[in-house]
């Protein structure tokens, strides 16, 4: 495994709050003040109604496992096999992530299992939200 080759996000002005939140141990989503929809990925307007009246909030970190693949091929910064998952957040949006503290097998990764957010520091500027089985 070679962490230096791992793909790292490059934040933009519209997404910086999300990455700042992750570094501070918070999963930050946005909610539209006009239509109340919580959404992800970050942008300074509501993708459901177009309103610019949106607010950043800290999500609960509660989620369920929505779907995944287990990659069996080599990838920079990862040791195969590893799962790439999409989780359903309690607030509504879904996001891609990795599942930690859990065997990377179909037997252990059961759809709809309860998960909670954790944070994985990549370097001084980037911390990734990841998920682990709830109560693990």
């Amino acid at each position, binding site marked *: 495994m070679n962490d230096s080759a791992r*793909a790292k*996000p490059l934040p*933009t002005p519209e997404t910086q709050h999300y990455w700042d939140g992750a570094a501070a141990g918070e999963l930050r989503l946005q909610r539209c003040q006009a239509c109340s929809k919580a959404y992800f990925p970050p942008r300074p307007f509501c993708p459901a109604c177009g309103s610019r009246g949106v607010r950043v909030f800290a999500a609960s970190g509660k989620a369920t496992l929505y*779907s995944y*693949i*287990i990659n069996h091929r080599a*990838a920079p910064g990862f040791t195969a096999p590893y799962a*790439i998952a999409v989780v359903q957040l309690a607030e509504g949006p879904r996001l891609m992530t990795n599942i930690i503290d859990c065997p990377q097998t179909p037997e252990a990764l059961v759809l709809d299992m309860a998960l909670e957010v954790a944070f994985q520091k990549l370097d001084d500027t980037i911390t990734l939200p990841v998920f682990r089985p709830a109560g693990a």
Partner: protein
Amino acid sequence: MRRNQVAVVGAAETTRLGVIPDMSQIQLHADAALNTLADAGLKPGDIDGLACAAETPTQLAHYLGITPTWVDGTHVGGCSFMIHVRHAAAAIETGLCKTVLITHGESGRSLIGKPPRSVRADNFEGQFEAPYGTNGRPTQFPIPLLRFMKTYGITQEQLAMVSVVQREWAAKNPRASYKDKLTVEAVLNSRMIAYPLRILQCCLVTDGGGALILTSADRAADFPHKPVYVLGTGESVETPVVSQMESFNSSRAWRVSGAQAFREAGITPRDVDHLMIYDAFAHLPLYGLCDLGFMPPEATGEFIANRNTAPGGKLPVNTNGGGLSYMHSGMYGMYALQESVRQMRGIAPAQVSGARISVCHGNGDMFGAAGTIIFSNQR
């Protein structure tokens, strides 16, 4: 758009398909274009409209010696060519041009004259997917599949039958990359790539190309081959990041594109004799059968497992062998269109006898984009 106002009057693939290390990507475009011009009995100077995706129309116009009055560089992945057909039909109908050449060439395997695919670190994919270890399409495109299988009770064995029946079609096609018989056991014992998909459920990676020439239906009778009419068309896009699809049980872009094409054509799925569904991975024909309105999603696995899409079945699907067995250079839509045109001309290696209506559905950038063309050989 009105039905049957525009027709395909030229269609051909590159002389060779497979591994072509002696041609750059733009030459694959040109090889396909020259074969197609010959098929239609035309010269480059007869073309006044040009569309392509893997290269720009400017590159191609200059390379081929064409002076277009209409160009389309829509590049939304593998269904770009379906969308080019749709846009070309509209342009011809409204008089923006008379004779459109759509070319595709892709050095997908040999990577000659083709930059490698790169992911930007600052867009949604680069920020919110790539850091979790996505590493090419096999790690992204199948992500919705486990949810689809759970929601609709689709089994691994049913899914494996997609590869098995497409190999049966490929066995009838001399130009197919793989023709050896497959079994469900062989598919389910093949090397795991991205669970739940194995190597025999992932497309080939090859070199090749294809091109089409379209003109008004009124002019089409003057060409050497039987015209293939454009009966209906559709297109849409949804999201560049698979994790943000509205649903993992269905593709919005596919539904919108398909419904538009059927509405325009004035037909229902019951009227369809031949169907092409872009198959970069084995789950796509299942999504296609439901999102294009052929059946409810829970029926798709059994429908394929019961050989309804196989040779002799009631709905022949991917009769060239598809991206799984025929060829797949990266953006496969052009090859699906070529097979629909061959079926409508009545010259396909695995010809569906008496076929009058062919539906050709493509996706692009995974589930990100879709284009649907409905062809007929009767005006």
